């Protein structure tokens, strides 16, 4: 028994480190000592899922659930394996149902259940699942994207586009784009004190960027004000102001700052971003937004999300082919960009290419669930509960 525990712990450690091959070997060593431990099969299922070996993942997760029907991490692995493999929606629906009962607060289970329903053409049930997910977490971006897709199927692009935009706002990647354009690094552990920042323009702007990234709008405002007091025509400081206003839903102020910034430096990417986003939020300004994002794409063409923002504006103009190209470019640059995947799915749907749209939605789920790393949360909860008993 002790030998099995040691082998299992080794496997766990290796799996957490991402050493898939070594972890699989350790799991098999543990299995050789006894194959009735659900955690080993659950770990193997997770590892096979990491390698995209879905049939093996299904087999191992099924064994784990057979041994312990309350092992939620195994349900997660099983459901994800079914979904990523494709073509097994009926089994998938059952698994996500089961998981949503075993772990009722697990938002992802409801999102995945909705996607499985949608793939099986049970649209009403799908919408209910996504709404349930949003009740649990109103900021769940993928549920909102899926509702946008459902809306597109039922009501057309005009009504779906605001939902896409809403989902985009929930998606943290848009803020990440701004900070990437700004070139700021990781947020410090301690709050930024404007009084302690070196009294130079560069230091103040750098610190203001970090403060914005840390959602410390007051510190950022103080720092930007200091720069603008010295030079009211500093385009970068104005662009930071525009972003700060944008975060506070002050669209007119943001637009004014961004336009002033661009009048001083017409190619400043951060200002282009703010202006484009403000335009995109306003009804009827898609043409303006598209122009601004085209300019931004020239300045920052390697950023996937820039092309996604452009594509969304083009969708609003009903220029589906151009939007599709921009989305494709976004996916090429960052295959894990969930927003680009859903956008591409939407443009496929407008062209009647349903299978490809379905594929993009599945890939979005693939990357989103990989990013979430839910397996370890559920696994640790399971292990913790076992220890308590």
């Amino acid at each position: 028994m002790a030998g099995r525990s040691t082998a299992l712990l080794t496997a766990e450690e290796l799996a957490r480190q991402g050493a898939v091959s070594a972890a699989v070997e350790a799991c098999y060593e543990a299995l050789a000592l006894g194959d009735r431990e659900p955690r080993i099969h659950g770990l193997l299922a997770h590892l096979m899922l990491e390698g995209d070996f879905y049939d093996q993942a299904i087999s191992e997760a099924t064994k784990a659930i057979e041994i312990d029907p309350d092992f939620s991490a195994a349900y997660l692995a099983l459901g994800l394996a079914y979904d990523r493999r494709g073509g097994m929606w009926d089994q998938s629906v059952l698994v996500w149902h089961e998981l949503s009962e075993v772990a009722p607060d697990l938002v992802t289970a409801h999102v995945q259940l909705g996607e499985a329903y949608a793939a099986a053409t049970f649209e009403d049930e799908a919408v209910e699942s996504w709404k349930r997910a949003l009740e649990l977490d109103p900021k769940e971006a993928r549920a909102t994207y899926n509702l946008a897709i459902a809306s597109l199927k039922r009501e057309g692009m005009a009504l779906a586009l605001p939902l896409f935009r809403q989902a985009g706002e929930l998606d943290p990647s848009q803020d990440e784009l701004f900070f990437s354009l700004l070139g700021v690094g990781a947020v410090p552990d301690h709050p930024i004190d404007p009084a302690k920042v070196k009294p130079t323009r560069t230091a103040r702007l750098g610190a203001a960027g970090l403060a914005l990234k840390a959602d410390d709008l007051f510190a950022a405002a103080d720092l930007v004000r200091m720069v603008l007091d010295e030079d009211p025509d500093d385009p970068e400081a104005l662009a930071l102001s525009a972003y700060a206003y944008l975060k506070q839903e002050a669209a007119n102020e943001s637009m004014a700052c961004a336009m002033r910034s661009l009048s001083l430096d017409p190619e400043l990417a951060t200002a282009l971003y703010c202006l484009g986003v403000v335009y995109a939020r306003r009804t009827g300004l898609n043409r303006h937004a598209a122009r601004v994002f085209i300019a931004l794409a020239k300045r920052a063409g390697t950023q996937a999300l820039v092309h996604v923002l452009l594509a969304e504006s083009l969708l609003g103009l009903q220029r589906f082919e151009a939007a599709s190209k921009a989305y494709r470019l976004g996916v090429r640059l960052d295959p894990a960009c969930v927003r680009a995947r859903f956008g591409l799915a939407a443009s496929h749907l407008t062209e009647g290419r349903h299978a490809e749209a379905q594929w993009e939605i599945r890939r979005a789920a693939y990357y989103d669930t990989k990013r979430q790393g839910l397996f370890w949360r559920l696994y640790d909860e399971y292990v913790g509960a076992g220890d308590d008993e």
Partner: protein
Amino acid sequence: MSETAKPKTGTKSAAKGGGAARNAKQAAKPVAEETGPLRNQLFPIGVDYYPIDDEKASFSDWYGRDPEADFAAIAEHRISLVRLFVSWKVLEPQVGQYDADAEDRLGDLLAAAKSHDLKAIVTFFADDRLAEMNELPWAKKRDPRTDDYLIQREISLVQRLVNRFRAEGAVWAWELGNEAFFAGFESEDALQKWATALRDAIREVDSARTIILACDPETLVRESGVDARVAIDGFEYGVSHVTAPYRAYAAEGPLTYGPATYLDSFLLRAALRDIPVLADGVGIHSLEVSVAEEAAYVRTALYSALMNRASGVTLRRWRDLETEKREPYFCDPYEVLVGLNDVTGEPKPVLAEVKKFARVAARLDLRVYAPQPERAAVLVPAERYEPLPSLTGLYAPRSCLQAYTAAKEAHVPVTLAREGDELGSFMTLFIPSAARLSAPMWASLASFVQSGGSVVLSYGGGDADPALREIFGVDFLGDHGVRPVLSCRIAQPGLLGDLSAFDVRLDLPHYALVGGGMSTVVATDATGSPLLTLNQYGQGKAIFLAAPLERAIAQSDPWAAPDAVRTLLRTVYGSVARAAGAGPVIDCDEPNAEIALFQGEAGDVVFVLNHAAESVTATLTAERVVASVVDIRGGAAAEVGARAFGVPLGANAAVALRLAYG
């Protein structure tokens, strides 16, 4: 989606020296309906004709319908083979008691086939989930694959049927089983024993007719871990067969572009060794895709088969299975869901594609035109056959598929070889992301390169064999491990094609840290660590890629792999193969266009297949001046008078052109 791009009449100004090609300028005359052969005798097209088309039907309804109308339609669409499935359960309801009516029914089927000039493949032991063909009430759940008594009963049944129908001219081949049946074997020995017993039993009664085992060696080893290659070698025909689980494993994604469009020919090449191979079970596996996508995919698969040395092709099912009214459909492991006609018998667009393809294939006289020999191969490492817990057996086929795709995109005539195979017929080898090669393989590689061959090997993780230093001229310093970004800086421009610097997001599982040693560093990463090296070893060249690019593409997202990485791979593959004399006779500038050249004495035939779901114009460049091109089906010849000419291709379209040289 148009099937072919019509040849166009060109101007006479020649494009010289392989320079800028030109599109022909004058519109072509419509292709006239030819009066040539209806079918290609050396490349038969077949279809599986299942005994039951309705999920609610009983096993006893086995071929209960009149096949006349179906066979007439099959023949009308230029299909020449039908696969018929024997139901053991119906034919031998009690031990040793055979149902004469059922035997007569089989006889009637063969007679009906004959009356429409169709040939039949008679399959003895097939699982199809519905017709319960091998579920014998008297077998008491013994395994028909391994139980000696049941094997004796199988031999009796087979000999009885072969004896009765051996004089029947409509029988093209006896087939022992189907993929689903063979998936039940658990060891090579059991399969070998069963296959030999059944084959010998047939040979006792019918010494002349073709016998087929009908299992794809690659998909079977993936499904069951059983390596069927030795067993298959004892038969006259092999098959390649894309199964639903294999597609989900190797190329799960859109069917009309990317890796999925190369999977059929990849498996075909994997199955091709010393015996002819039927590209079997062509078709889609679920009803999720549209009829247009289904038609586009099947078109690609059919042309891929002809262009990659298949000896024929069989389609998955004649008619859709009428399922009970329930959703959702699921991926059917027995592959009996989707056919060429819908449940009412109405032809689907895919059937028209089959007919069009048959018309093109009929015009290719394989006694006159031979495919260009493949002098390049993707080497499948022996580690592919390692069982779990080793993951190399799972990684290797995916890496090989990506390598195969890259070679195809580089227009290199390529096939597959396996570690241990004789390498003498090749000039170039691609060894993708192999973690380990055996000592004899290293020795064989050394000899291969020393005598003038070229090899491209990408690092696959783990320790390096000492032979790496000898052959590739690099000092292995260790594995740097996982990297999220691939950077490329060119150190020697032009040495291995037109490479460009880039930084792209790509999860690399390994990165070999190497010292340049004796080799020339062609490209490095951003820190100057060699990424691509070239070493002259004896008469040949050895190229080392420090990262497992093929595996990285396969494991990340093959449908959205960064263009820069794909370009790097195909540029290196193409450059090495061309320099070694393994390049194409007809070159092409469009990566998505697959080229297959069939060479004849009076001229050549070139097939061009678009693997993209969008229109492209491929510029083909020949080694000689092409006087004229004409669609293989006939029509007006278009004058070219140049080495290069443009071929417009619709989405997933194919074209077959007869070339006359000036």
